[in-house]
């Protein structure tokens, strides 16, 4: 009884093992590409109109296809399944036999270019999951979705040519990149602000570089970039990026951002028809580097992302009181304690010429009349009295420490570069279009002496004790000489 039971058990397990071996052998002998090739062959025979074509079709041998590209260091086996990519008879066939859409292959024959140079994916793989690299195939560059595919054109072509010849999306993305002021925070080729990450080589970075935790759907870099445009703080919670794009714009920009690649194409592949240097007039430069934060610059706004007030830099009241050399100093050196980047050549990478152009653009609408000079140095100042006044009059907006910041309407006042004369003038005259009201006789009604004291106190906040005493001494010496 027992022996019979064990015997049957042995028989069943032997059968199961045999079945497994059989399935494995079958899978190895007839992989999916072989099935596709047989199907393709049948299709050709079936569609043949004359004897000669039929004979030719029947002679096709089934076997792995590979295109080896020495210069590109690529070996693409995609044509093992996608056999009809160059066959005009296959225009209406089903994928994978379908002919390549449009006429891209006329100038890019498969034998010379392969497939993965444009489409990405894993060229050497021999099954669909690994070759396309989608889902959880652990391939850094899975096959690129059609809406972003134009990003790969920019490896060899210039944007001017792409704009006219089938690369509109990526060209639009390039224009958007400049208009939306991405480089106000991100560096590209060594030029740009320092608030965001450097973008060089972003399109060819490994998946592991991107924090994928909150990406919805496939965890690819394409999805990361796209969803990051939709809501930066959903993907990177501490992000300070501002991205207010339409769906379409986000697609274009994603396409463009993917063109930032670290490796260069071999020279015999590139085709640059016309090198167009981007416009470098004041307005374009302002858009590239300033517009993301300062917008139109007419009003100062409290910004929920930066958690501070962004000053109005094209406000007539501001332009009236400030001179070009002072603006230049601010632009070049930045403002410590705020989000303002230092834009000089060895920091954010703008040349003096470019900075001058931007300043000319900002000050374009400077009002003719100058305010009556304040004559700060003509007064004796008393920072102690200034402190009392500051606590009552200024601290509500600028904060007790004069740094501005969260939930405060005022900007950071601690800056060594600010000339006391300019600050005093601003306090007296105020700035229309911002919450800074005139504190002089025209408005709140402070005496000039009070303003001097307040400014002196603010000056003591931003200067160290030693700097303040030496400045004071210099002032007194000057008075003495006079």
């Amino acid at each position, binding site marked *: 009884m027992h022996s019979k039971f064990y015997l049957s058990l042995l028989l069943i397990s032997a059968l199961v093992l045999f079945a497994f071996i059989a399935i494995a052998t079958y899978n190895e002998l007839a992989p999916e590409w072989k099935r596709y090739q047989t199907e393709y062959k049948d299709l050709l025979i079936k569609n043949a109109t004359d004897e000669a074509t039929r004979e030719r079709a029947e002679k096709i041998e089934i076997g792995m296809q590979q295109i080896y590209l020495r210069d590109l260091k690529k070996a693409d086996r995609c044509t093992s399944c996608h056999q009809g990519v160059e066959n005009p008879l296959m225009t209406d066939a089903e994928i994978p036999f379908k002919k390549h859409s449009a006429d891209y292959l006329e100038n890019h024959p498969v034998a010379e270019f392969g497939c993965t140079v444009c489409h990405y994916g894993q060229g050497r793989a021999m099954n669909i999951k690994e070759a396309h690299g989608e889902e959880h195939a652990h391939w850094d560059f899975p096959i690129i979705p059609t809406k972003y595919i134009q990003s790969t054109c920019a490896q060899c072509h210039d944007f001017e040519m792409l704009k006219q010849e089938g690369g509109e999306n990526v060209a639009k993305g390039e224009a958007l990149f400049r208009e939306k002021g991405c480089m106000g925070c991100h560096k590209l080729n060594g030029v740009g602000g320092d608030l965001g990450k450097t973008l060089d080589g972003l399109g060819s970075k490994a998946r592991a570089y991107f924090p994928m935790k909150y990406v919805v759907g496939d965890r690819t870099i394409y999805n990361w970039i796209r969803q990051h445009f939709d809501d930066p*703080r959903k993907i990177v919670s501490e992000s300070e990026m501002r991205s207010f794009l339409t769906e379409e714009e986000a697609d274009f920009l994603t396409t463009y951002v993917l063109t930032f690649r670290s490796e260069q194409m071999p020279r015999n592949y590139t085709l640059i028809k016309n090198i167009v240097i981007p416009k470098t007039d004041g307005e374009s430069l302002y858009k590239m580097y300033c517009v993301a934060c300062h917008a139109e610059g007419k009003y100062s706004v409290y910004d929920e992302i930066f958690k501070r007030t962004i000053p109005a830099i094209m406000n007539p009241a501001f332009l009236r009181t400030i001179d070009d050399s002072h603006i230049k100093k601010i632009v070049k050196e930045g403002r410590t304690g705020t989000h303002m980047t230092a834009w000089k050549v060895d920091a954010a990478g703008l040349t003096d010429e470019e900075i001058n152009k931007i300043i000319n653009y900002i000050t374009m609408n400077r009002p003719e009349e100058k305010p009556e000079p304040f004559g700060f140095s003509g007064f004796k100042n008393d920072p102690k009295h200034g402190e009392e006044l500051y606590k009552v009059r200024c601290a509500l907006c600028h904060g007790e420490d004069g740094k501005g910041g969260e*939930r405060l309407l005022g900007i950071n006042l601690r800056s060594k570069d600010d000339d006391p004369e300019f600050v005093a003038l601003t306090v007296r005259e105020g700035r229309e279009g911002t919450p800074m*009201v005139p504190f002089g006789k025209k408005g709140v009604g402070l005496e000039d002496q009070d303003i001097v004291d307040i400014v002196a106190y603010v000056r003591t906040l931003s200067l160290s004790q030693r700097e303040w005493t030496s400045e004071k001494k210099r002032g007194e010496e000057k008075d003495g000489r006079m």
Partner: protein
Amino acid sequence: MGGCRKRYKIIVLILNILILSLVFVPLTHAEEDIHETDIELGKKVYNIRCEICHGSKGDGKGLVGVIRRVEKSGREQVIYPWDLTQGVFRFRTTPSGCLPDEEDLLGIISNGIPISLMPSHKHIPLKERNAIIKYMKTFSDRWEEEEEEEEFCQPITVKKPEWVGSPFSVIKGETLYKKMKCWECHGHEGKGDGPKAKDLKDDWGRIMPPFDFTSGELKRGSSPESIYITFTTGLDGTGMPSYEDALKEEDRWYLVSYTLKLMKKIK
């Protein structure tokens, strides 16, 4: 000897009376017009701290004018300092249409309204804050006229049920959010982008977009109790009505749960 002593006693008595009267005179004087000095003090503090935005007459037309604020979603909001002369206030614990009680006003002055950039005044003495309220009440006649209506305008009682925030109450709240058409202004996801959001104006005809629940803390604070108070009393002067008559107390608490969910305070 005896006469000298008597004289000495009289002098001491007179001196005592003099000193005592000197002490008492200012005290009695202060008691007489404490009201007057309070308003004067209030005016002084108001002129230094509040006038710059709310205007010397309290009409919200101070030197500052308007304040601009950009939310994380990129929506720009124009904030107008509140007009105190109308006697209409948003943040009350009293029923819709009533004047706020002093505690409501003191709360706003002390804590400020962070999202509207009204600063907090916790650091100034309580006496001065109370004095500001006294002075503020001179801006509108409503304060004197409606002093008798006290019985109707008692602050509402808030008693939070234990189940607020439970999954069941959130679902209940969601159906009510749809049924009561909250989404017409506040949007389906509470982002303040409903179909009617753009046309929303306050009582003075200025554009006042509905609150975006994903943008941060509510003006009055985001505790369940304060959200409940908003549903019950409404925000007078804005598009937000009171739901005291339209919804049962229970239902209002359900909506509180759903609001907390929209604000991502609960999962």
